[in-house]
């Protein structure tokens, strides 16, 4: 899932300076399950904003809405009638949802309420960890299902480095050494010999280094007359 974290209330308040009516818009997909921007968090933030801005002065009118997914037009379109009533939309979606809103509704002043943090998962309730960097060329077959691109601080393809101590990364005691994890898992699977193969430099052009990425599936595209504008 895409993992996000709500911005501090003070930062959100400062973004909303001069705004009298705001629609706080949640997203029912990734940020709901990472408890950062779903219906519940929309309710909490809207209530907090109403109170905080009333204490500061006149108060902002904060309405609430949560759509199933902010990153698809069909879920955004029902908002079209409501948006003209607001000075701003505070999106609690990830950066994709914020941009989708801004693109779909060019007249709307769209603001981000979250910091989109990483692609990850909750290894236990209340903790989220990064697992993928969307590098565009998956190598998990060679690393025992543990990604050194996302989980090694140096993104080493042939690790570990000298900073691996007691199974931890030198960057932080909270960070397990990804290459220790890879070694342990390959060892448990009886496939250690695979690690003897030296990995050549990765083709980073499939990652962000090649610029913004795009996928086109001609078999899925609609005929030109039916395509979204």
């Amino acid at each position, binding site marked *: 899932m895409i993992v996000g974290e709500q911005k*501090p*209330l*003070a930062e959100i308040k400062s973004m909303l300076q001069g705004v009298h009516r705001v629609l706080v818009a949640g997203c029912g997909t990734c940020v709901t399950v990472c408890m950062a921007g779903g219906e*519940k968090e929309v*309710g*909490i933030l809207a*209530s*907090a904003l*109403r*109170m*905080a801005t*009333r*204490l*500061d002065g006149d108060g902002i009118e904060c309405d609430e809405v949560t759509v199933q997914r902010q990153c698809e037009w069909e879920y955004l379109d029902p908002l079209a009638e409501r948006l003209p009533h607001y000075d701003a939309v505070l999106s609690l979606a990830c950066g994709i949802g914020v941009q989708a809103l801004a693109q779909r509704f060019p007249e709307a002043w769209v603001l981000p309420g979250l910091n989109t943090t990483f692609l990850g998962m909750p290894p236990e309730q209340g903790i989220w960890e990064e697992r993928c960097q969307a590098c565009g060329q998956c190598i998990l077959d060679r690393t025992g299902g543990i990604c050194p691109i996302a989980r090694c601080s140096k993104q080493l393809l042939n690790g570990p480095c000298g900073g691996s101590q007691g199974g931890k990364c030198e960057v932080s005691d909270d960070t397990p050494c990804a290459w220790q994890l890879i070694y342990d898992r390959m060892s448990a699977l009886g496939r250690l010999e695979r690690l003897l193969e030296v990995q050549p430099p990765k083709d980073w052009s499939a990652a962000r280094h090649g610029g913004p990425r795009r996928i086109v599936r001609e078999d899925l595209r609609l005929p030109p007359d039916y395509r979204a504008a």
Partner: protein
Amino acid sequence: MASENHRDPQIVAFCCRHCAYAAADLAGGLRLSYPAAVKVVELPCTGRVDALHLLRAFEEGADGVIVAGCLPGECHYLEGNLRARQRVERMRGLLTEIGLEGERLEMFNLSAAMGTRLAEIANLMTERITALGPNPLGKRRR
């Protein structure tokens, strides 16, 4: 609410039916008096307490909020009271960010046999809230 007098704080007490709510009953049976400022809301467990219950109480003008659940280890649903405390702590932080005093919200643990303690809690919070003054968001005529 009966009182419109600005000297009387309004305190909402979210009480678990297995302990604090029964303790309030016991306090009555013992003829203990506690401030009328405290308005009891019965819950099946403090685990039912949601961040929104707490925030909306303040948004609607409550001067203080009490969450009263079972003693640690004695929750009928095992750990509803422990989870409630985590939520209360987080909301205290948020209240401070909002600009209200976090001390207006407090969680207490007690058993159904502690009617006297319930009256003490009601007195303690009423005194604290009176000292802090009314919730500036109060909608009541002041």
